């Protein structure tokens, strides 16, 4: 019984969700960072998750190999949506046409992403606490 693998799985889930929260915070903080050049303006970032099969040696049971998938952040991609163009000649960053480009951050989407990430984080914390309690109770078996 390798219950300690649970800590690895839950730890990976917690860190993946916190990376997601980091990108949400970064997007929201930069939602108004305009620029005169559409190629250098901030673009919304999102993490990509991938399930990783556990690295097990030979001789482990097939069920041990089938379960035990932790999650890892494969990478952080930048959104390809076009930045919004605005006519604002008074802005010091405006280009020669008087346009500024605002990042393509959808604030509503970011907020719902944050709610989903925090819910998943709480689920993982609960799994961690419960597994830890169960293991401690197992150690007290018979006494």
């Amino acid at each position, binding site marked *: 019984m390798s219950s300690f693998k*649970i800590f690895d799985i839950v730890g990976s889930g917690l860190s993946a969700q916190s990376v997601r929260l980091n990108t949400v915070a970064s997007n929201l903080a930069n939602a108004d960072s305009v620029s005169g050049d559409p190629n250098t303006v901030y673009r919304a970032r999102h993490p990509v998750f991938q399930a990783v099969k556990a690295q097990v040696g030979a001789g482990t049971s097939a069920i041990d190999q089938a379960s035990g998938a932790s999650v890892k952040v494969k990478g952080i991609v930048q959104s390809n949506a076009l930045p919004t163009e605005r006519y604002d000649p008074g802005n010091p960053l405006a280009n020669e046409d008087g346009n500024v480009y605002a990042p393509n951050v959808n604030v509503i989407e970011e907020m719902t992403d944050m709610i989903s990430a925090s819910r998943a984080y709480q689920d993982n914390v609960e799994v961690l606490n419960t597994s830890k309690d169960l293991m401690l109770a197992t150690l007290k078996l018979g006494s």
Partner: protein
Amino acid sequence: MPFSLDTYLGIHPDALKLQSKRTEVIADNLANADTPGYKARDIDFRAAMASAGSPDAPVKMTTDNPGHIAIDPNTDASANLKYRTPLAPALDGNTVDSQQEQAAFADNTVRYQATLTFLSARFKGLMTAITGQ
């Protein structure tokens, strides 16, 4: 009269092992609740217990030569790791339903603690019989 600890403890050690496996599988599902393309799995507990305790369980493989590939005798348990049927389709191919997984996790926790209590009672009974008090 020979005393067998295995028959005295009954199905509870097997149930405990399976329940701890199921905790891992459900924790997997919850950790991958947002991974695109991840399919939620669960252990068919009834079928797994039936195959673990029945007298016509599959033949266990043994290795008596260093050249043999080591196979764990519990490989038959993998047949009971099944996929969940998703209630609602998701755009990214993920079939994990957090609420369902949470409920299954709570259910498994209570069963695990019940099995621990039963095992503990068995051991206490044995100790009473040995020490006589």
